[in-house]
């Protein structure tokens, strides 16, 4: 027994000594950013790796001072940017631990990350406790700021309510007639919330429409034969889905030859990222959302043209939502860093200074204007757009009938819970 404790103690001491020695001190001329996103598992191909790629590319361009105006200063406030990449796999428990390691062991200055809603919800209070300036760049759940207030946590992208409110509005704008609709959404919070938001929005916009079926396949199910049969038996006018990534591609591939896309109009809230890989296999006439005005749906601007071309040149594929969302987070961070440094006399800003600079700020991104308008200046709203798939002259799938929505048309006003706003009939919505 005695020897046992000795072994345990010496092991602990050894680990302590090892890691204390290797912890590098942060330097003043570099800004160390911890980037957390999925590098393995089901979200790697669709979200994580493209976002990490987009981040690496944009940081390289920033460090070289090659981003167009107004982002043309070198690095962030003259500091070179260093990325520390972490895999988001493993669930919220692991992510809280890795977040602490990033802050306390790797001494990063800023954390930018999290695709998973559960990870965002778990990490936000820890960031607050550690007083660590943190940007949530992607996750969709509206609950992050609806159930808590944070000083150090920001989300630089709109939450997922926008995507489903926008879909319902898009159908109305296109003059689509809907008497019945059905849904196929993954059985976890994002899928359940998406379906709840969509049915609530439909109840307002199409009060006569009825739900024909609501299916909840497991996350990562991979086989959708039965679901396809159930959807086709129900014969709804509209099939709504917030599926994404490999699950969505499998659903499309399996349902397409069975005629689901002929029988019903399919509306997908977050599907732009499957268009480049699926290519000509993608059916026509499908309504596509991108969780923002990204890729095919992006508004014309010099910044967007530069970003689109730079990404395509580097990775030989067009940028989809994930790199756009990473880019808008990093651009917002750059604006905040430089604003903070203008205020503090040019030294590397603290978390408090960064938070003060980012709160309520606005900046241009390739996907349009980002406004930190909600949750006391911590939650972004942004314009969005939807389109319908169609084959161009060469047979490639592109989007047509693109309808843009102003940020305040599809996002709730500040301090209003998204679902309440929908159920009350969108009071104060500004649609032009």
């Amino acid at each position, binding site marked *: 027994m005695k020897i046992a*404790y000795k072994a345990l103690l010496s*092991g602990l001491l050894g680990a302590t000594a090892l890691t204390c020695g290797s912890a590098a001190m942060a330097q003043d001329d570099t800004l160390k950013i911890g980037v957390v996103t999925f590098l393995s598992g089901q979200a790697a191909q669709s979200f994580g790796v493209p976002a990490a790629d987009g981040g690496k590319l944009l940081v390289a361009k920033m460090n070289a001072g090659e981003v167009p105006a107004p982002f043309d200063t070198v690095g962030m406030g003259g500091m070179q940017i260093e990325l520390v990449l972490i895999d988001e796999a493993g669930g919220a428990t692991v992510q809280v631990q890795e977040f602490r390691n990033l802050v306390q062991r790797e001494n990063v200055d800023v954390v930018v990350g999290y695709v998973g809603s559960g990870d965002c919800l778990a990490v936000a209070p820890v960031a607050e*406790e550690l007083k660590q300036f943190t940007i949530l760049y992607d996750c969709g759940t509206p609950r992050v700021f609806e159930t808590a207030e944070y000083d150090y946590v920001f989300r630089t992208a709109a939450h997922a309510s926008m995507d489903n409110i926008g879909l319902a509005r898009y159908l109305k704008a296109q003059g689509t007639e809907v008497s019945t609709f059905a849904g196929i959404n993954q*059985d976890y919070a994002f899928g359940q919330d998406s379906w709840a938001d969509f049915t609530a929005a439909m109840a307002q916009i199409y009060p006569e429409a009825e739900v024909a079926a609501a299916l909840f396949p497991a996350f990562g199910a991979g086989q959708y034969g039965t679901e396809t049969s159930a959807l086709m038996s129900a014969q709804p006018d509209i099939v709504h889905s917030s599926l994404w990534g490999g699950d969505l591609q499998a659903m499309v591939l399996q349902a397409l030859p069975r005629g689901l896309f002929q029988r019903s109009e399919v509306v997908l809230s977050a599907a732009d990222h499957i268009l480049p890989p699926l290519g000509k296999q993608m059916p026509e006439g499908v309504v596509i959302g991108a969780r923002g005005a990204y890729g095919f749906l992006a508004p014309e601007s010099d910044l967007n043209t530069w970003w689109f071309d730079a990404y395509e040149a580097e990775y030989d594929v067009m940028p989809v939502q994930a790199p756009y969302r990473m880019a808008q987070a990093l651009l917002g961070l750059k604006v905040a860093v430089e604003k903070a440094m203008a205020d503090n006399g040019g030294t590397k800003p603290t978390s408090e200074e960064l938070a003060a600079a980012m709160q309520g700020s606005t900046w241009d991104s390739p996907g349009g204007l980002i406004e930190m308008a909600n949750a006391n200046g911590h939650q972004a709203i942004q314009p969005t757009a939807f389109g319908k798939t169609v084959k161009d002259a060469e047979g490639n799938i592109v989007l047509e009938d693109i309808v843009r929505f102003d940020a305040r048309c599809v996002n709730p006003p500040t301090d209003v819970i998204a679902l309440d706003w929908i159920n009350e009939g969108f009071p104060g919505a500004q649609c032009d």
Partner: protein
Amino acid sequence: MNNTLKVVVIGAIAALALMALGFAMPRWLLFTATKAVAFGIVALGIVTLMRGGLVSFGQGMYYCVGAYASGQLAARYGVTDAFILLIVGGLGSGLIAAVVAPLVARYRGIFFAMLTMALSMVLYGVLAKINAIGGSDGFNLPKPTFAGFAPQDGASDIALYAVAVATASLCAVLCRLYYDSRPGLIALASRENELRVEYLGASVFAVTARNFIIAGVLAGLGGTINAMALGHVDPFFSYWTTSGEFVFIAILGGYASAIAVFGAALITELVRSFSGSYFPDSWQLLLGIFLLAVIVFLPLGFGSLWARRRVTPPPADEEIRS
């Protein structure tokens, strides 16, 4: 000195030494150590089962029940005292384990493992559906307090670490005493040969059920500690990968020792975390190699390094049939 006193004294000294060490640790390690200690407590439950020849692949269920019971108490009713939460978490999961125990105590080997796993996955599926407690995203809970004290920032981390170490030491001491007691030794005997144990008049069923309830309580304690440390609970606590991690740690620690699991837990956490930080694209490969290396070179776990005399390795071919 008699055995009981010896074990208690050693346990107390170790607890105090480890607590003192907490002050010297960098903060990130403090958190990792707290989490590892909590995992170690859960794995101690599996070690207890392993002594009776069983491995549960569903301890995530009791870990999850403990975390949800104490977490709901904290988040919904504002009870933040760490000691009350530990008692509630341990008793809550122990209660559920007591309900399940008669059901699973008949099972052996892979079927025991798979039945416990299936049960934990049913709980996972059910919790992911209940939106009132956060659905699949789970819920956050407030920082714990300690008998009226609410330490701030770093002090809170140290306090929780100390509570975790104290709980772990208490559990380890009690388990050691139980292992060396007559009922505990019957468990070890039934690992070797159940039929003989039955012929000697002992009930393997009762031994297994008792061990299962002990393991449930331990898992609930671990779940409560991690719920307090993380400030967040979600159904992933009951997912099979979580249970797999506990088994991993228990096998690494080995069934010979009640304390090796804690070292195994810390080493596993450090290997996973460092390979994740420095090789974000291939950490699974490294973790797999690490796991294989331990199984190949330390077939009876870390515990076998110092407890060789306590157990003898089974012969390569133990199939002795009647």
